[in-house]
């Protein structure tokens, strides 16, 4: 069982780059067309942007404002599939016996984006890069909660997925479009009055049977919950602010506590 506050969050998907756009999406979720759009990341000089892949840009775009210039915060990068378009392009070069791009090859590891975050933001603390199954999102939150328990003042958690290369269509069925969600997690502290925050309890229990996977990836589903459960709701409504994500033998229960 884990308790934490969500102090700030930010999400991106093609065409969904504002609070209003996500609000509308949360109320009427649908598959948005993914035409390889990518955020501009204008906060970075061009020379620093040149080695950021699409997924790296998407990650920077959502995570950037969640960490202050003078803060050192642990960083959790989570992605079930990672950069399949880059992997596929490298494999195609191998198959055609073409030399590999040193830059692409050097960055073709799962923790490359966490490394770029560290370099670009001057972050010298812990970073974690994980890949799990359909509940990668919950495992990322578990990492974040453990870092908080270790004493971190706050943790930046990002889950990012990129629309896979067409060749993977038969295997990857849980990335309806490229998206990323960044959350800034903090400890529950009753002495802090921060009405904009929401507090959540995440609990893992056993799950028997297969169950059907949800329509939306867990992170997007949670994003809907963040939008539809406004803090202005009455206490009675808050009690219903919960959601459940099941995967294989795991049942993740999300309960909003404030």
């Amino acid at each position: 069982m884990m308790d934490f506050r969500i102090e700030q969050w930010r999400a991106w998907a093609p065409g969904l780059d504002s609070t209003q756009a996500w609000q509308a999406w949360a109320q009427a979720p649908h598959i948005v067309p993914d035409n390889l759009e990518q955020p501009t990341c204008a906060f970075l000089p061009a020379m620093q942007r040149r080695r950021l892949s699409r997924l790296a840009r998407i990650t920077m775009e959502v995570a950037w404002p969640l960490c202050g210039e003078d803060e050192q915060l642990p960083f959790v990068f989570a992605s079930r599939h990672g950069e399949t378009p880059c992997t596929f392009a490298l494999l195609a070069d191998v198959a055609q016996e073409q030399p590999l791009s040193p830059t692409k090859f050097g960055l073709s590891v799962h923790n490359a984006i966490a490394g770029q975050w560290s370099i670009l933001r001057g972050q010298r603390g812990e970073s974690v890069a994980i890949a799990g199954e359909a509940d990668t999102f919950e495992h990322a939150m578990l990492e974040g909660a453990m870092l908080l328990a270790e004493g971190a003042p706050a943790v930046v958690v990002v889950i990012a997925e990129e629309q896979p290369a067409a060749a993977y269509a038969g295997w990857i069925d849980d990335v309806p479009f490229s998206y990323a969600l960044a959350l800034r997690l903090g400890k529950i502290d009753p002495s802090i009055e921060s009405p904009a925050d929401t507090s959540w309890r995440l609990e893992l229990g056993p799950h028997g049977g297969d169950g059907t996977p949800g329509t939306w990836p867990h992170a997007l589903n949670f994003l809907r919950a963040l939008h539809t459960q406004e803090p202005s709701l009455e206490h009675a409504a808050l009690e219903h602010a919960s959601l459940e994500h099941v995967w294989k033998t795991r049942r993740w229960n999300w309960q909003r506590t404030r």
Partner: protein
Amino acid sequence: MEPAALEQPALEQEIAQLIIDTLNLEDLAATDIPVDQPLFGEGLGLDSVDALELALALQKRYGIRIESNAKHASQHFATIASLAAYVEVQRTACAS
């Protein structure tokens, strides 16, 4: 005043564009890089990974071979002008 940048010969212009495209230098146009501006360190600000990437792109584009331990490599890669001269020589050598 950078008169060299005003009239880039074709090969220089081509190499400048190759650098921009290969290294993903979004905000630059070929004419923005003076042919005698240092590419590495002070100047354009490229680094050693860029050098590897650029060597690969030059080999692919011009069908030349650049040995990784080639003598004077850093001199050849110093500016667009020196790269153009190097490509010209190598192209002739490889063609014969």
